[in-house]
């Protein structure tokens, strides 16, 4: 609320930097289907790329937790991929994976996978040693220890990872649209072209859709966490 008022103030005193909210809304209502279609494209990238990052990140974490040697071998590779500017490798990705959505998904995955991996790994390791003892004495298999103990125990960390990864997946999709050649446009492409044409309304309409997207995802995540992690007192202030 206060944010909105501050916005209008700045918009009116600085008309060439940010437009008034009314103009932004008008720009959306003028051609809702274009925004909607671009939103869908971006959403699809976030869903597929972000979803893959979550699944792959967690799987990698599980493998690294179970096989120390895999951590030694893969962590530097992951690290290297992480610090590689995606902008620079995007053309190589397009060469390798064509003009479809795949390179965009891959860029999104690269940007979003890391928080999931690191947090899940920490969570998988932070198990209660007493329960681990109880399970080891009955020869619980790696799989059983994972499924009964590490998997549920890692969820609080995993959710912290999600909270970081989901905004990054959105950013990743935007970056992918800037840098990876392909068919569909998306909100990110729309924003980048609009910005280069000084089309403030479209730029900020696009940005605001990113924000809404992000806030919706995070709200959904918070609800989900409350349902799934009712047993956890991390993250809640102790009474």
């Amino acid at each position, binding site marked *: 609320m206060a944010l909105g008022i501050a916005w209008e103030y700045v918009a009116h005193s600085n008309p060439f930097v940010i437009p008034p909210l009314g103009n932004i809304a008008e720009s959306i209502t003028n051609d809702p289907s274009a925004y909607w279609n671009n939103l869908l494209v971006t959403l699809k990238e976030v869903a597929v790329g972000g979803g893959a990052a979550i699944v792959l990140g967690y799987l990698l974490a599980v493998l690294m937790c179970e096989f120390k040697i895999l951590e030694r071998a893969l962590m530097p590779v992951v690290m290297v991929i992480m610090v590689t500017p995606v902008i620079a490798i995007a053309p190589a990705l397009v060469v390798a994976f064509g003009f479809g959505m795949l390179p965009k998904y891959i860029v999104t995955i690269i940007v979003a996978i890391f928080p999931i991996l690191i947090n899940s790994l920490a969570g998988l390791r932070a198990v209660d040693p007493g329960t681990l003892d109880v399970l080891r004495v009955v*020869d619980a298999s790696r799989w059983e220890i994972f499924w*009964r103990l590490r998997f549920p125990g890692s969820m609080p960390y995993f959710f912290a990872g999600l909270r970081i990864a989901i905004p990054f997946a959105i950013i990743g999709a935007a970056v992918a649209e800037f840098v990876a050649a392909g068919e569909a446009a998306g909100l990110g492409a729309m924003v980048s072209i609009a910005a280069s044409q000084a089309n403030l309304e479209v730029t900020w309409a696009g940005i605001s859709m990113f924000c809404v997207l992000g806030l919706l995802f995070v709200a959904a995540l918070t609800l989900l966490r409350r349902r799934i992690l009712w047993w956890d007192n991390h993250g809640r202030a102790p009474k």
Partner: protein
Amino acid sequence: MNAALTTTGAEVLARGVTKRFGVRGQPVTVLDDVDLRIAPGEFVSVIGPSGCGKSTLLRIIAGLLDADEGSVAINGEAVPQAIRHKAMGLVPQTPALLPWRSVRDNVLLPTQVNTAANAGRNLLDVDELLTSFGLGKDLRKYPRQLSGGMQQRVAIARAFVFDPPVLLMDEPFSALDEITRDQQRLGLLDFWQSNRRSVMFITHSVPEAILLSDRVVLMAARPGRIAEITEIDLPRPRDESVFLSPQFREYEIRIREGLRRVMKNAQD
């Protein structure tokens, strides 16, 4: 699968067990050449000053810690084999319950893993077991809704539920009030008398050790070692009435003296 393991208690044999921990670079000997045999179906209590190495010895027998020297065998098998057969049930010093599982599901946990080793095994009825532990009304509660003592009882039930031939218990009753503790002791006594599992029982209570045990092992500290072993020659089956027998008093005095001696030596 080793049939003897499921039909009665198994023999536990530790030989020359030595364990050192490094504290700021310097190794400290925590267990020094410890020999311990628990005959099949025997109930052995281990008592000794705080920090003398009781938990460490138990963890080595349970295969949770490797000895630096010496060996452990369960019914002649190495520990890893015994573990494979679910030969041992563990009650750790802290309850270590899973916060996302109800009381009932926490107890069921060991039956749900390594299910191959459940074959031919006498799995106890969870609800009955927990009711006999005074937790009949708490089956569907979660650990954080329980008091400390209630949690400890859940941890005991978890070790009993798959009826292992060897029970390893690290101070299981210390968080219980006297009456519950008495009930649990007598429950354990009944339970043991009916199925004769081998038990290694760490306790700080001399009367408790005498009531339950065939032998009481007294450990000394720095380095941890076995100071003396007292055979408890009280008739079986036992019940609360043993507390009143003069023999009981004698054992009590003898073991208390042993303890005192062991601690005095340590202070010199």
